[in-house]
């Protein structure tokens, strides 16, 4: 990453550079788009939301008197006559992480103004997200079919169902919102809105390829959160 060119301003490396940027006028993060800075701060706030969820989950799981169900049994799949633990989750995680890769490529092609590749990669990311949400719906329906409810659970502590549905539901909502925006952005990319700087439908802000990177930040964050949920729910 090279520093942006700013008239009358010389960047310094390391801690001194950080101090100089902080002490300078106009902007603290030189050359950083407003929307991008906003997304970072939003994600910091969102991190606190998920942290509160996961800490509550740890507290709930730690203090329950009834045994917590064994995740490799509850989340196992029975395929071709064999019980495979965590099979579905492995596929879900793989799909979601792959979609992060395609998103990163979309950002790259966006900055190269390669409208076609960028659009297809965003579309591919959206489909990855959609597949993930679909598989999550399948997992939910499987668990509900087996009798797990937010308020009760045949395999052990009722809090298992409560926390599982609440936290994966909240994460799934994040993914779904991301998917909706990915479809919109794919449409806008193919239509060339970012090339011509067409104004947004609601915000009346001029379109720019940086928007794809901003959405990308959100998408990577959602993936990162999934890694934590995966570790805390399925591996613990």
């Amino acid at each position: 990453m090279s520093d942006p060119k700013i008239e009358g301003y010389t960047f310094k490396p390391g801690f001194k550079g950080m101090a100089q940027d902080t002490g300078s006028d106009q902007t603290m993060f030189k050359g950083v788009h407003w929307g991008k800075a906003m997304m970072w701060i939003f994600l910091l706030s969102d991190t606190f939301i998920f942290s509160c969820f996961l800490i509550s989950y740890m507290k709930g799981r730690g203090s329950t008197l009834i045994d917590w169900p064994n995740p490799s049994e509850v989340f196992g799949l029975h395929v071709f006559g064999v019980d495979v633990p965590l099979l579905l989750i492995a596929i879900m995680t793989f799909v979601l992480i792959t979609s992060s890769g395609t998103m990163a490529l979309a950002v790259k092609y966006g900055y190269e103004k390669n409208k076609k590749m960028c659009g297809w990669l965003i579309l591919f990311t959206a489909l990855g997200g959609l597949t993930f949400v679909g598989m999550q719906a399948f997992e939910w329906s499987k668990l509900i079919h087996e009798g797990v409810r937010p308020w009760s659970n045949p395999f052990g502590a009722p809090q298992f169902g409560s926390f599982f549905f609440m936290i994966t539901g909240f994460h799934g909502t994040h993914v779904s919102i991301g998917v909706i925006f990915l479809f919109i952005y794919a449409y806008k990319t193919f239509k060339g809105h970012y090339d011509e700087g067409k104004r947004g439908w609601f915000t009346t802000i001029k379109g720019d390829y940086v928007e794809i990177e901003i959405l990308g930040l959100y998408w990577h964050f959602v993936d990162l959160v999934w890694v934590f949920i995966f570790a805390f729910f399925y591996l613990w």
Partner: protein
Amino acid sequence: MSEDLNNNKTIQAQSSETISGGGSGISPDIDYVRPAEIPEQDLYHGHSFITKWVFCQDAKVIGIQYFLLATFTGIIGLILSWLMRLQLGFPGLAGFMTAEHYYQFVTMHGMIMVVYFLTALFLGGFGNYLIPLMVGARDMVFPYLNMVSFWSFFVAVGVLLASFFVPGGPTGAGWTLYPPQTILEGTPGHGMGILLMCISLILFVAGFTMGGLNYLITVLQARTRGMTLMRMPLTVWGIFTATVLAMLAFPALLVGALMMTLDNILGTSFFMPTILKAGEVLEYGGGSPILFQHLFWFFGHPEVYIVALPAFGIISDLISVHSRKNIFGYRMMVWAIVGIGALSFFVWAHHMYVSGMNPWFGFFFATTTLIIAVPTAMKVYNWILTLWRGNIRMNVVMLWCLGFIVTFVNGGITGIFLGNVTVDVPLSDTYFVIAHFHMVMGIAPLMVIMGAVYHWFPLVSGKFLDEKLGKWHFWLTFLGAYSIYFPMHYLGFIGVPRRYFEMYDSPYMTSAVGMNEFISLAAFIVGAAQFILIYNIVKTLKIGKPAGHNPWKANSLEWLTPTVPPEHGNWGERLPVVHRWPYDFSVPGVKEDFVTQTTAPSEIAGSKVEKT
């Protein structure tokens, strides 16, 4: 005095190194300011009544909208407090008042005043109006998001007030909403009331997040040329730091409210332990009520500083302007604000001393709590040192400032009592606590709001508020508020418990009866006195004295707009260029006693002004 300084050649104009960016060395031109690095902001100008005044994207109009709606909600909170005092002072006088009603009024009064009045007013109201003006931006960076923020707040207030009209009425669980009793039968509003409260809080947090992102990015990324972070008025520092706190603290409230909602409507047991009711075991079981307390107070304590930090910032500016002196220890003030903000995340369990915890845990939280007193005391000393030998204008604004210092010190000292576990345990849940937090985060921030209204009204409307009415308003409020809360300390010492509907014939509390009557009468008067301000505003808007440009002779940018009141876009053709901090008052050798932030060093060549 100034003669001495003129002869003293050691004070010289400093180099422009601090602002000329990195490494380019000392510019020969002392007025040099780096060229703009951000392009002109693209603004959407409203062209009809709806886009100009209703769904408006101008931060100043949004600020006024926030201010009016928060004030409206605050008046409802005020009326609720009247009803509570009516019951406490004269039990049985209001026939309709049952214990259930009393609990509902207590709950709604607390939640409205803390979240929907003070938070919305300081951050939504003053933040929106002042941040872009004070940092020299044309508007908030995301005007559309800003508009959605206000309308989310609007819906949140609507949902909150709707809970008065649902079956069972609003929740009566106390503003802390502690489970399990919040959602159990027997607590007023245990069904719909608490549901609407949680939904309203979630909407408020969502709306606030949109506004908060705006404030933060505007301060960080949209300052005008020459405006460094250390040249921002302390008002901006206070609101900025409070917003950071809010962005990190509100998530805990959101999560708590969401889990409470699920416990309420789905029958999950996040917070619900096994409960026996009339010999029968309820469906709930296995949850932790203490978990909610941790989530709530992880939000709740920073919330105190979300209200207090903007107040600290605003009061610093008001004191400086009206005593014609630079704020004493500007950098210390900034670091104190940041330090208090950071510490506020490590003290939350001091609200839970009586919930039962490991003694070492209490020890830790008592220590962190007392450490906060250090930066806070630094700020109080600095305000007093700013006043010391100042050219004090004893106008209404200054009266509110002095009132703030007194009430804040008073509330702060009782805070040191309550921060210690051993002192807190016997005082907990008594009127001493009520007296403490009303003094420190009720009356003190309110004094700042009032001072700020009298100070900035000439900017918002172009007219001075009436001084005479203002003095009546101040003295009635200040003396009245003391009459309300000072006796409450005594009530706390004799053990009058808070949240009780009536004392009945408690023999050891006979001395509380007369005092309760006195407090109630004072509360009615103070409440009524607030309507003097409303009358004053209406009267001023009709026949007020025009204020013109920069009536207080202040330095900060909001007073330097080409038009008063400022128009959309704030600055006309060209953005202002900043050369100094906003506190150059009474500078030796300068003819006027103020040097505005936009004054270039060469314009006052003869003086010994440092280019800060």
